[in-house]
């Protein structure tokens, strides 16, 4: 499922990957605003504040000389590195492509990145534990080696029978033991033990109060990191950012296509995400005063592609049918070898996956839902470019993966954009009068426990439409009779409703926001093709859910709870999603959102080894079915393209409502 190719655009912004085709002479700042690129400004593009610094990575030579404003705002070093002010430059004539990087310092971080998830009670039992020891130093009568002395004390005081002291700890051991007590005093050290088996560090004095870990949700678009106190199980800092791998491919498939070109390409993509995670670690450490060496473990959760690209596992074959994953079980990698900036002897632990397109993120969601222990029948969906769905209870569960495509993320949609400032996030249409209302995301503050952004941008006029509003399009249009159940525009409105009109290319479209209401002075519309993309996406999701129900032999009535995981899922209107037939028609009170389950699962696994064992069990226990080659797929999928469905028996409530409105 690819978007358009990079070459088709003449301005590309990294790291967001946002791109577009613009007329020569268009200001880069204007282009950024139109595309919804996160770019700081105070003066609004007047060349006064110097906040919109960007780096020109391709096409710098075609731009004119520095303006006086740029001379004033850019340092010599920045000038050398092709820095410019976005508001002072415009797309030159005859340039094939401008590639522009927005450095972190010029970003607000205002993209709505969801990092929160449910807080779940887990028994505190992290893999990393610290033990304080005060040991009598040796005498001529007691000349045990330092190593043996330490092991003896650990056995006598804490009951460890079989601890390993690896070489990298042994080299400095004699020195560290004697650092606190001077030449004659007792040895005063703290021993850091990993998984009750291995000593990963010995530190002078009592450092037991300072024991940290990070939990990271590696999303293909976003990274969410949590710095946690392993003594208390509490989150002490949160950080999130765009996945720096985006320049190598917007969606996971094109990213894998890039990475499988060569070993070097894989390493580049791997390094990108590790750098991004290291940046987050540094940011959180700065906020809290915690040192990176006081972080002993990182727990990582992500889909199978992210797992391969983070661990550097050859990704070629998992991108091709039958999509075999390189590894499935939990994988532990030494932090220093991976290049992770935590304690060098620490570990990265990547959660287990189910298979090719059902990764650790889905296992995490299954852990949060607690499939291993519940009696209720729960249908859980993680909505995204690839939608994973699990159905079952403790007696058995099935999962499925559907290539739903990026339509609900605003891609492949003519006026689509990500959930950032200026995005329309809700659409409401009066079913009788077709009076239209929309809500725009304005001035989001940055996120996190202790982070905040310095500047607030106030775009109050819309630029485009983001996923949560796209989710309203099909149901609101059908209810108001703007489209038929088949998704086709109701031609009878042409000439009756001024919002309905024919485009130059012959397609029909419906105006959501008129030019005078928008930030860029152009109409924001939904076209027939947009409708089709949304239909395909929602049909894929319903088909997945429905095939699982058939496999389990249950009907909609048997579903006790419908759980929506993932960032996108927590912003959509569950009623809208249900009316369009994205999932089975369960009563609204049975629908619950659990936010970023991957992040929650990562946090649970970081502080609880029991949670890790459950994840491993789930990864083997939940059975997978392949939707695309399921014998019923060709019957269910086309029917699910109708809104809500061609088979109205599955949607009695919606059918009754549409009947009452006279739509069917």
């Amino acid at each position, binding site marked *: *499922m*690819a978007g*358009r*190719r990079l*070459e*088709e655009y003449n301005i590309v912004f990294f790291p967001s990957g946002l791109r577009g085709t613009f007329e020569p002479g268009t200001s880069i700042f204007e282009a950024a605003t139109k595309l919804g690129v996160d770019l700081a400004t105070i003066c609004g593009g007047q060349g006064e504040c110097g906040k919109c610094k960007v780096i020109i990575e391709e096409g710098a030579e075609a731009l004119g000389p520095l303006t006086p404003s740029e001379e004033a705002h850019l340092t010599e070093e920045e000038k050398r590195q092709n820095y410019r002010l976005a508001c002072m430059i415009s797309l030159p004539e005859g340039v094939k492509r401008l590639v522009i990087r927005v450095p972190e310092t010029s970003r607000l971080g205002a993209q709505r990145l969801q990092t929160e998830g449910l807080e779940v009670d887990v028994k505190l039992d992290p893999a990393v534990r610290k033990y304080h020891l005060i040991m009598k130093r040796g005498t001529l009568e007691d000349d045990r080696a330092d190593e043996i002395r330490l092991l003896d004390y650990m056995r006598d005081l804490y009951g460890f029978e079989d601890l390993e002291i690896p070489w990298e700890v042994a080299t400095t051991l004699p020195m560290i033991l004697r650092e606190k007590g001077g030449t004659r005093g007792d040895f005063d050290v703290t021993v850091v033990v990993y998984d009750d088996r291995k000593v990963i560090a010995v530190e002078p004095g009592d450092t037991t109060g300072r024991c940290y870990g990070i939990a990271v949700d590696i999303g293909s678009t976003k990274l969410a990191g949590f710095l946690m106190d392993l003594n208390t199980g509490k989150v002490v800092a949160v950080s999130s950012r765009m996945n720096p791998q985006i320049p190598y*491919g917007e*969606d996971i*498939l*094109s990213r*894998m*296509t890039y990475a*499988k070109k060569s070993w070097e390409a894989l390493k580049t993509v791997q390094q990108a995400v590790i750098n991004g995670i290291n940046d987050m670690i540094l940011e959180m450490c700065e906020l809290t005063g915690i040192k990176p060496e006081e972080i002993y473990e990182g727990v990582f959760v992500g889909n199978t592609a992210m797992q391969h690209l983070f661990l550097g596992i050859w990704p*070629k074959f998992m*991108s*091709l*049918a039958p999509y075999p994953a390189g590894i499935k079980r939990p994988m532990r990698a030494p932090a220093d070898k991976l290049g992770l900036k935590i304690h060098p002897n620490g570990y990265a632990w990547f959660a287990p996956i189910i298979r090719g397109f059902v990764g650790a993120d889905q296992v995490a969601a299954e852990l949060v839902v607690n499939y291993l222990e519940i009696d209720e029948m729960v249908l859980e969906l993680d909505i995204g470019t690839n939608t994973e769905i699990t159905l079952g209870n403790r007696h058995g569960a099935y999962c499925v993966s559907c*290539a739903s*495509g990026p339509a609900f993320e605003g891609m492949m949609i003519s006026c689509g954009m990500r959930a950032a400032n200026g995005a329309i996030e809700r659409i409401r249409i009066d079913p009788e009068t077709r009076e239209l209302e929309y809500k725009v995301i304005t001035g989001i503050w940055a996120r996190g426990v202790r982070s905040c952004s310095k500047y607030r941008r106030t775009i109050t006029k819309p630029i485009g439409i983001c996923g949560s509003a796209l989710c309203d399009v099909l149901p609101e249009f059908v209810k108001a009779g703007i489209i038929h159940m*088949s*998704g*086709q*525009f109701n031609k009878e409105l042409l000439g009756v409703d001024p919002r309905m009109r024919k485009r130059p290319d*012959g*397609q*029909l479209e419906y105006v959501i926001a008129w030019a005078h209401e928008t930030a860029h002075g152009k109409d924001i519309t939904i076209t*027939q*093709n947009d409708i*089709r993309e949304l*239909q*395909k996406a929602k049909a894929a999701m319903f088909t997945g859910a429905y095939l699982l129900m058939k496999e389990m032999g249950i009907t909609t009535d048997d579903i006790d709870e419908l759980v929506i995981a993932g960032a996108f899922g927590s912003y959509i209107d569950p009623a809208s999603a249900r009316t369009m037939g994205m999932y089975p028609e369960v009563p609204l009170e049975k629908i619950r959102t659990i936010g970023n389950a991957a992040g929650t699962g990562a946090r649970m696994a970081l502080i609880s080894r029991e949670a890790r064992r459950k994840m491993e069990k789930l990864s083997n226990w939940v059975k997978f079915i*392949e939707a*695309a*080659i399921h014998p019923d797929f*060709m019957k269910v*999928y*086309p*029917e699910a*393209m*109708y809104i809500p469905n*061609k088979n109205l028996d599955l949607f009695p409530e919606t059918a009754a409502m549409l009947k009452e409105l006279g739509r069917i």
Partner: protein
Amino acid sequence: MKAVAEALCAGDKEKTVELVKKGIDEKIAHPLEILKDGLGVGMTMAGDKYEAGEYFVPEMLMCVDAMDAAMEIVMPLIEQELREKEKAGGGAPRGKVVIGVVEGDIHDIGKTIVASMLRAAGFEVIDLGRDVPIDEFIETAVREGAQVIAASTLMTPTLEGMEEIEEKLKEKGLKGKIKTIIGGGATSKEFADEIGADAWAADAVEGVDAVKRLVEEVKMAMAEIEKRMEAEKKEE
């Protein structure tokens, strides 16, 4: 004939089959005529509706379903007749197309619609299905004497396979003798140009037009070659 076309376009499988059967049993129309003026026209009508935004995948699939059912009745008769004609040494052979979803991809709805529309347009279509090894495309095309290979993929990682088709055709000196067309979600005009595919189509309607053109090109090129060879023979 018009009734057949309309029933097909409406995706009414039972009615289409009923009308086709009636047409043949009562000798109202010749099977070839039914294919061309009934089913062919019906699929074109459906294609036009798709282009106009009126039809979408579900409607197209219903037409395909009706088309396939009707073809089951008509095709054996046509095959038989063509064989007899060929034996008698007359009649121009139809264009032949080998179609499939490339190795590593299993998403085949689009391919199925295209295959059906090609059949409706009178082509002989050999549908290799999904997850088709690259060599199988080429071997089948050579064995069957097809003029066109049509390859589809929805996913990006499998684009490579399409490039491989081009390379292998070149290697074997078949480029030009067998023309290629690609399509599917992950493909684009630029990609087709980049790898040297002979055509790219955004949808089934464009695909049929492009295949018509490609088949003609191959036939003309082959005729040219034959002419030249004959001329050379004469000189000798």
